[in-house]
Each structure stands twice: as structure tokens, then as C-alpha cells.
């Protein structure tokens, strides 16, 4: 990309990689939590709902600091990961973890709405035909909520792509490893004469965010039109 200098291109590609990994890893637990909230009533449900939303409410720096305490080289899980040569602190995988944690609540909220839009009576009908919970989920609920699901994934990707506070707190800014696009942008703003670079990255960020949210909005609209 001739119009984007090398280190900015690296930051963009890293951000795309981090956001994709974050969304992919957040997806299975988010699907599980969203399904629980949409389809089951249980004691402690308000507690789970609140806990899931925490990353959305807490200052991102706090989330980053907690991640550092737990997954850092001196953290409980971080030490175990170090021993297995799987350290994630100050690595791109750590940036993906931070972005995944921050995108997780958004993903759960979107998936829950998608699952709740599926008529429960169809799931009941499937049960009377002998289908177990897995078959009902993968054969009925998931295909019927697919558009909402993809829209949720697009939003979560956009959120992960823009992650800054928790990431810089947890994995700092290491060029080519953890210096994602928002962090590179911030550093350019701090550097004398970095305005033109900052402007370029701003455009890139706006385009990626717009593409993801516009895609999500189009899918939601098509899902609404498809409803009988």
C-alpha cells in the first residue's frame, strides 16, 4: 500500500489480525452465554448479566490492569502460561485477549437479541419431533438467527479493531507485536510532525468501522424484512 507507510501498514494488518482472533475466540463463549440468557431462567441470572456487561461499564484501563494482574508474568495464570512457553503478556495474543474481553459484552448482547428473535414455538415443535437441545440449536435456532448473528460478529469485530485502553495497559506498545492501529495513531499524535500520519490512520479506522457497522446494519435490515 503505497499511500500508507510501512509501519502504519504493519499496525493496520496487526489490528485486523488481533480483531479477527479476538472475535473468533470470543464467539463460542459468547454464543453459550447469549443462549443461556435468551433461553433459560436460573438463579443468579441477574448476576451473570451484570458480570458479562462489566467490561462495557468499567474504564478500559481497569480491565487492562486486571488482565495484567492475572495474565502478566507475575499473575496466577500468566505464570502457568510462562511455564508452558505460552506467555501472552506483551505479545499480540495478549492484545487479542484484551480486545476479545472488551468486545465480549457487545457480542453477547447482539447474539442474545438474535436468539430471542427466533420463535420458541418452533423449538418446541422440534422437541416434539424428538430433537435434542444440540440438534434444535444447530438445526433451528442458529440458522434462523444467522443474520443477527453475523451482524453481532461484525459489531464485535469493529469494537475489537478499535480497542485501545485495555490493550495499551495490558500489552503496552511494541511495534509489529502489540502496536495496533489505535495505539500507533495515539503515538503519532504525541510525536511532533505526526499529524499527517495520524490523519491517514484516522481515515483507515473510520473506513474499517463504517464497513463493519454498515454491514451489520444491512444484515439486520434484511433479517427484519425476511420476518413473516
Amino acid at each position, binding site marked *: 500500500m503505497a499511500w500508507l507507510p510501512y509501519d502504519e501498514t504493519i499496525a493496520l494488518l496487526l489490528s485486523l489480525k488481533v480483531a479477527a482472533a479476538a472475535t473468533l475466540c470470543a464467539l463460542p463463549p459468547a454464543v453459550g452465554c447469549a443462549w443461556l440468557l435468551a433461553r433459560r431462567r436460573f438463579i443468579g441470572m441477574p448476576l451473570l448479566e451484570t458480570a458479562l456487561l462489566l467490561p462495557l461499564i468499567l474504564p478500559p484501563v481497569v480491565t487492562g490492569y486486571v488482565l495484567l494482574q492475572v495474565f502478566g508474568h507475575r499473575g496466577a495464570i500468566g505464570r502457568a502460561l510462562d511455564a508452558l512457553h505460552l506467555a501472552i503478556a506483551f505479545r499480540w495474543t495478549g492484545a487479542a485477549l484484551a480486545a476479545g474481553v472488551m468486545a465480549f459484552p457487545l457480542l453477547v448482547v447482539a447474539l442474545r437479541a438474535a436468539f430471542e428473535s427466533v420463535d420458541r414455538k*418452533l423449538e418446541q415443535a422440534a422437541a416434539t419431533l*424428538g430433537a435434542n437441545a444440540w440438534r434444535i440449536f444447530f438445526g433451528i435456532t442458529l440458522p434462523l438467527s444467522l443474520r443477527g448473528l453475523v451482524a453481532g460478529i461484525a459489531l464485535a469485530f469493529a469494537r475489537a479493531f478499535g480497542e485501545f485502553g485495555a490493550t495499551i495497559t495490558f500489552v503496552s506498545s511494541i511495534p509489529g507485536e502489540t502496536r495496533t492501529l489505535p495505539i500507533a495513531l495515539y503515538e503519532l499524535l504525541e510525536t511532533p510532525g505526526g499529524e499527517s500520519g495520524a490523519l491517514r490512520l484516522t481515515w483507515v479506522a473510520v473506513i474499517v468501522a463504517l464497513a463493519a457497522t454498515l454491514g451489520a446494519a444491512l444484515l439486520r435490515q434484511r433479517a427484519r424484512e425476511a420476518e413473516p
Partner: protein
Amino acid sequence: MIDLDFALTRGEFSLQLVLRSEARTLALFGDSGCGKTSTLHAIAGLLKPARGRIALDEHALFDSHLRIDVPVAQRKLGVVFQDVRLFPHLSVRDNLCYGAPRPRDPSHFHDVVQLLGLGALLKRKPDQLSGGQARRVAIGRALLSEPLALLLDEPLSNLHCEARAEVLEHLRGLKRELALTTILVSHQADEVLSIADAVALMEDGRLRSILPVAQFGREQRFAMRAPAEAR
């Protein structure tokens, strides 16, 4: 053999039913809100009685005393819902096969398709079906799940005259061809008279009486004549 003795509460409505019948096809008959559909849903396992026993053909499906509550998916009952509930994203063929993706007897599929006249509809999606066709697909889907009994909830409701005749004809054919215990919910006498062997009259969540269908027919004719003669 249909053996029901259970109590169920939903909000302010309470259903208390003691009903035994040897009829092959039993109709639950009564005004709307008398508990017919709730009874059907309790048999299917979609509503849980507070206490009691539900058994069909010697299979206990629910027994609060013995702590039996067979999960919905294991009750092996073919339920045809009043609102049809075909899976909108699946073709008619896939809807039909949903209950038995690997049938024990593949010729059964062709028999049911023929019996219900579904051959030309197999590739369609549910939104491309008329009301009567959708109802026939729902009946076929229930039959193909290899059920021990069939539960039909107002199978002719919301159908125009021609579609009613069409579905009714197929239901009669079904009764002739298959020896399957069937419970039919209805509030229309003609529907009951042409399919059922016995009729359970329900009122306010209770059973008023069980009549053989012939007697039910005589009472219906009498009830229709009586207001005219009173004038």
C-alpha cells in the same frame, strides 16, 4: 388406551382432568378456553402438571407419584399444532424428514407422502404453501417422526371451506390406513363427527362426560333442533 388423571394451573386457569378411554381416536370437545389445548400440551410434555399421571397405551409419560416425567423429545408423540409451526428455512422434504432423518423404513416416507398428497410440494418452502397444504405437511411431519400416538390441535381451524374438506379427507384416509391412537382437539362438531370414535366433552377445565361418537351426533342434532322447536 388413554389414561389421564392430572391437575395443572396456569395463572388463574386451573385444569383438573380424570379421563380414561379405549377409543382409537378421541376428540376433546368444548368451547375455547376450556382447557383442550392445555391438555394436549400436557400430554406432549410442553406443560408440566402440578401432580397426577399421564399414560398412553400403557406408556407412563408423567407420574408425579413415581417421579416419572419423560422429556418432550423422548415422548414419541406426533404433535400437529394449531399454528402449524413448519420450519421456515427448510423445504417441505426437510420438514417432513426432521423427526426421522434416518428412517427405519424408507418406504414409509413415500407412503405418507402419497397418503397426504404431498408429492408435488416436496421442494417448496413453507411460505409457498396454502393453509391446507401447510396443515397436511405438518400432519405428515408428525407421522414421519414414527410416533406412538398422534396429537392434533384443531387441524381444520383457520382453513377456508375447500381446504377444510381437503384436510378432512386426508385425516379420514389416515384413520383408515393407520392404526394410531389419536387425540384430537376441536370445537367444531362436524370435524369431530367425521374423525372421532369417542368424544370427551370439556367445560371450564373439567371433563363433563365421555360419549361414543354416535351418541354425540344425536345430542348435537338434538341441540341444533331444540332452539328451532322452542320457537
